[in-house]
C-alpha cells in the first residue's frame, strides 16, 4: 500500500481529488520501466537510490513515486539456487569471529566450505532480505498502460485505506459487494435508491461510531476493485488525509484495474442447486441473482428466479438461507414477510432451522438436509403458481 505522503492528491477545502495517471503519463512510465530493467540483477536498495534521482524527461513527483512502488511489487526477486543466504551468513560470520586470518581469506574459506564462487559471496550474502533482494524482470513484460492501471488502483486503495466510512450507490452486482463487505466484518446497510434498479450501501465498522478510525480501511479498500464489476457505481468516502477528514468521490469512470471476476456462486450448495435446476426444470428459465426485492427500506437478494418458458408470468423466487442463528433467521423472515413476496420459497437447512415451520406467515419454507431436493422444490413451485 502507498504511504499517505505518496498519494497523488489535490486537496480542495474538505475534498480530496485523486490525480490518476492517464495516457499522457505513458512516456515517463516507459522511462521508469526502462530504469527498472537497467537495474535487473542489482539490489532493491541500489534501484531505490537510482530512482531518487531524475528520470530522463519530466515526471510528476508523486505519480512517479506511486508507480515505482507498484512496479517494485510487480517485479520478482531473485533467490540464489546454490546456497541459502542465512546459512551463508552463519558460516561466514562465525568463521570471521573465530579466525585470525584477514577478511579476504575468511571470505575465500567460507566460499570453499559452501562450494560457491567467491565472487558471488558478497552478492548473495543478504539477497534474501527485502531491501537487499536482487531485482528480476517478470516473465511477462509490463506495458506502460498496465502499470498505469495498477498504479491507479493502488492510489485509490491507498486513499480508501484511510477511510472511516464509505457510501456507494450502485447498479448490478450489489449482492457480491454486500457479501464481501459482511465477510470483512463491516456493517453494511442496504437501502433502495430512487432508481428501482439501484442500491445504496453504507459501509463502516462498529467502532467507527466513536472515532474516525481507519481500522476498517483495509476492508473498505479491498472492495474497490470489485466495484469495477458493477454496471455503475458512485462512491463517496470520508478519508483521513493530511490531518483532516476529507470527502473522496469515485465512480465507474475511475481508471482502476478491476478485481478478478466475482465467483458465480456463494457456496457449493448454491452451485449444486443451480446445476440440478438446469437438469430438472426444463420448462423454466433459471436466472441466477435476479434483481433485489425491496423490503421496506431494505433490499433482499434472492438466489434464483425461475420463470416459466411458455407462461412468463409464472415466476418464483428461491432463496437459500445458509446462515443459522435463530436471531438471523427471525430477522430474515421478518424482512421477507415485509417484502410481501408471495412467490418466494426459502430453503432452510433442517438441522439448523431452529424450529421454523413449513409456512411462516406468507412465506413458503422448504427444509433440506445437506442439499436441496430439486424434485421437492419443483413440486412446491408447481403448487405455488
Amino acid at each position, binding site marked *: 500500500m502507498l504511504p499517505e505522503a505518496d498519494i497523488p492528491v489535490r486537496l480542495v477545502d474538505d475534498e480530496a481529488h485523486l490525480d490518476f495517471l492517464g495516457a499522457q503519463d505513458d512516456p515517463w512510465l516507459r522511462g521508469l520501466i526502462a530504469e527498472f530493467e537497467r537495474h535487473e540483477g542489482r539490489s532493491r536498495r541500489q534501484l531505490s537510490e537510482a530512482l531518487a534521482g531524475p528520470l530522463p524527461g519530466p515526471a510528476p513527483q508523486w505519480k512517479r513515486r506511486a508507480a515505482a512502488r507498484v512496479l517494485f511489487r510487480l517485479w520478482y526477486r531473485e533467490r540464489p539456487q546454490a546456497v541459502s543466504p542465512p546459512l551463508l551468513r552463519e558460516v561466514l560470520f562465525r568463521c570471521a569471529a573465530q579466525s585470525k586470518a584477514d577478511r579476504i581469506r575468511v571470505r575465500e574459506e567460507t566460499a570453499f566450505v559452501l562450494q560457491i564462487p567467491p565472487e558471488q559471496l558478497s552478492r548473495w550474502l543478504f539477497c534474501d532480505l527485502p531491501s537487499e533482494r536482487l531485482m528480476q524482470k517478470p516473465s511477462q513484460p509490463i506495458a506502460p498502460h498496465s502499470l498505469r492501471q495498477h498504479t491507479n488502483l493502488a492510489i485509490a486503495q491507498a486513499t480508501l485505506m484511510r477511510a472511516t466510512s464509505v457510501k456507494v450507490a450502485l447498479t448490478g452486482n450489489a449482492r457480491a459487494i454486500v457479501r464481501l463487505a459482511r465477510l470483512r466484518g463491516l456493517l453494511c446497510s442496504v437501502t433502495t435508491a430512487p432508481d428501482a434498479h439501484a442500491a445504496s450501501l*453504507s459501509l463502516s465498522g462498529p467502532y467507527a461510531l466513536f*472515532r474516525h478510525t481507519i481500522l476498517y480501511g483495509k476492508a473498505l479498500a479491498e472492495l474497490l476493485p470489485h466495484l469495477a464489476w458493477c454496471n455503475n457505481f458512485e462512491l463517496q468516502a470520508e478519508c483521513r488525509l493530511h490531518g483532516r477528514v476529507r470527502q473522496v468521490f469515485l465512480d465507474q469512470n475511475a481508471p482502476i484495474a478491476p478485481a478478478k471476476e466475482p465467483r458465480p456462486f456463494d457456496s457449493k450448495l448454491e452451485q449444486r442447486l443451480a446445476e440440478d435446476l438446469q437438469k430438472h426444470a426444463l420448462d423454466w428459465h433459471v436466472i441466477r441473482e435476479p434483481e433485489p426485492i425491496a423490503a421496506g427500506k431494505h433490499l433482499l437478494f434472492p438466489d434464483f428466479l425461475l420463470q416459466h418458458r411458455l407462461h412468463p408470468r409464472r415466476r418464483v423466487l428461491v432463496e437459500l438461507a445458509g446462515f443459522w442463528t435463530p436471531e438471523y433467521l427471525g430477522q430474515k423472515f421478518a424482512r421477507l414477510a415485509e417484502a410481501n413476496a408471495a412467490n418466494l420459497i426459502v430453503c432452510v437447512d433442517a438441522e439448523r432451522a431452529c424450529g421454523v415451520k413449513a409456512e411462516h406467515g406468507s412465506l413458503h419454507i422448504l427444509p433440506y438436509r445437506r442439499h436441496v431436493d430439486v424434485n421437492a422444490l419443483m413440486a412446491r413451485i408447481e403448487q405455488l403458481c
Partner: protein
Amino acid sequence: MRLLFDRGTIVLHDLPNSLDPGAIPGVLWDPRVAAWRAPGRLAYPLASELRRRDVRLSDRPQPQLAPPTGFQPVALRPYQQAAYDAWHGAGRRGIVVMPTGSGKTRVAFAALAATRTPALCLVPTRALLQQWVAELGKFYRGPIGCFGDGERSLAPITVATFASAHRNMPLLGDRFGLLIVDEAHHFGNARHDEALDMAIAPLRLGLTATPPPPGPVLSRIGALIGPIRFELKVSDLQEDALAPFDRITQPLWLDPEERRSYDDLRTLYRGAFSAFRITHPTARWEDFVRIAANTDDGRRAIAAWRACQRLLAFPRCKQLALATWLHRLSDRKTLIFVADNDTAYRVAREHLLMPLTCEIGRNERRLMLDHFQSGAIKALVSAQVLNEGIDVPDADVGIVVAGSRGEREHTQRVGRLLRPSRGKRALVVELVVQQTTEVQSADKRWRRLVA
C-alpha cells in the same frame, strides 16, 4: 438488560424504559443498527454504572478464555516488588516506569501469576514477541498464544505485537481480563490506541523505561492503561541492579571533501527550512516535508537533508574509528548501533559482523543471539532491532556509530549493556562528528540519560 460484545464495542440490549443511556459517558446511539453502543474498554465501568442505577444485567462481557494455570513462583527484587505492590494497590491499573535492564518483565510475570486471569501481552516488535514467548515459557507451563510474525494462536496467556493486536482486537477484545503493555510509551498518539480502547480487560499494566513528558500523550495513556504508579531512574538503581558503565565520546572530523559536501548540503537545506519557518512558525517537520515536496527547491532541500543524514551515518572518519575500536575490543562482546539498515549491512560486509535488523527472520535472529551468548560470534550490528527490549545479557560494549531517533533511543540502547553480572563494567563508545548536528544531539541524549 444485556451488554453484548460486538467487534470491539459493547452493544446495549433490552434497555429498561427508565434508563437514558445517552446520559452515561462514552455511550452513543448507533443509527446503523438502531442501538446504543460503547467502546469495549468501558465494559466494566458501564456495568458498574448500571448496577449503581439499579439496572439488573442478565448478560455482560467477561473474559471468554479459561484462567491460566501452571505458573512457577516469580522471585522479585525489592524494587520490583515495590513496583508490583504500587500497581496492585492502585486497583491493578497503571504504568510502571523502570530503567531498561532492571527487570520490568518480571513485574509483569508477577502480575500474570497473581491475577490468574486470561491475559494479553502487547509488545511493539516481532523480535520482542519471540522473546516474551520464550521468557514466559520459563515461568508458565500452560500454552502460550501468539499473534504476529505470521502466527495466530489463542491461549489464556497470549502475546501479540501492537500491529497484530490492532488488526485483531475486534476478535480478541472480549477474551482477556488483563492487558500487559510493554513499551507503553508507544501509545497515546492515536496510532494503535484503538487496540486498547476495544479490549474489555479491566486490569491493565503498562511498562516503560521512557514515559512521555506530562501532556496530552501521557493523559491519553493514562485513560487507556492508567496513570504512572511507580517510577525509578537509572541513578536510583545503578549501584545494585544495573551494571556500572564508562562513557567515551570520541570526537571525529569529516575529511575535507566530506566537509565541503556536508556544508553545501546543509546550507541548501537550511535556506529552504528557514524560509519555511518564517511563513509557518508553528508547522511541524512533516508539514515541511509535505509542502516542500511540491516545489523543485523544496525537493532539493529535502534531498539535501537526506544526503546529510546519509553522510553522517557512516563517513570515512567513523569507518576508521569503528575499525580501530573493533580491533581494540576484539575479545569483548560488542553491540554496534547504527542509524539505518543500509549502514548495518555496510558494516556487516566490511567487518564481517552479523547484522540484526528487522529484516532478519526470527529463527536466524534467535540462532545468532544464541551464538552471541555462547561467544561463537563476538559482535552484532543493529539499527533499531536492539533499541527496545531485546535481551542481550552478556553484551558489555556498545559502540554508537549513529542514531536516528533521539534521546529515547539512546536510553534504550545503553540499557542493552546494563544488565548486571558479576564483575561487569560496561563501556559505551560514541562516535560524534564535530561541527555537525551530531554534537548537540549527543549532548542532549546524555543529559536525558543521566537525568
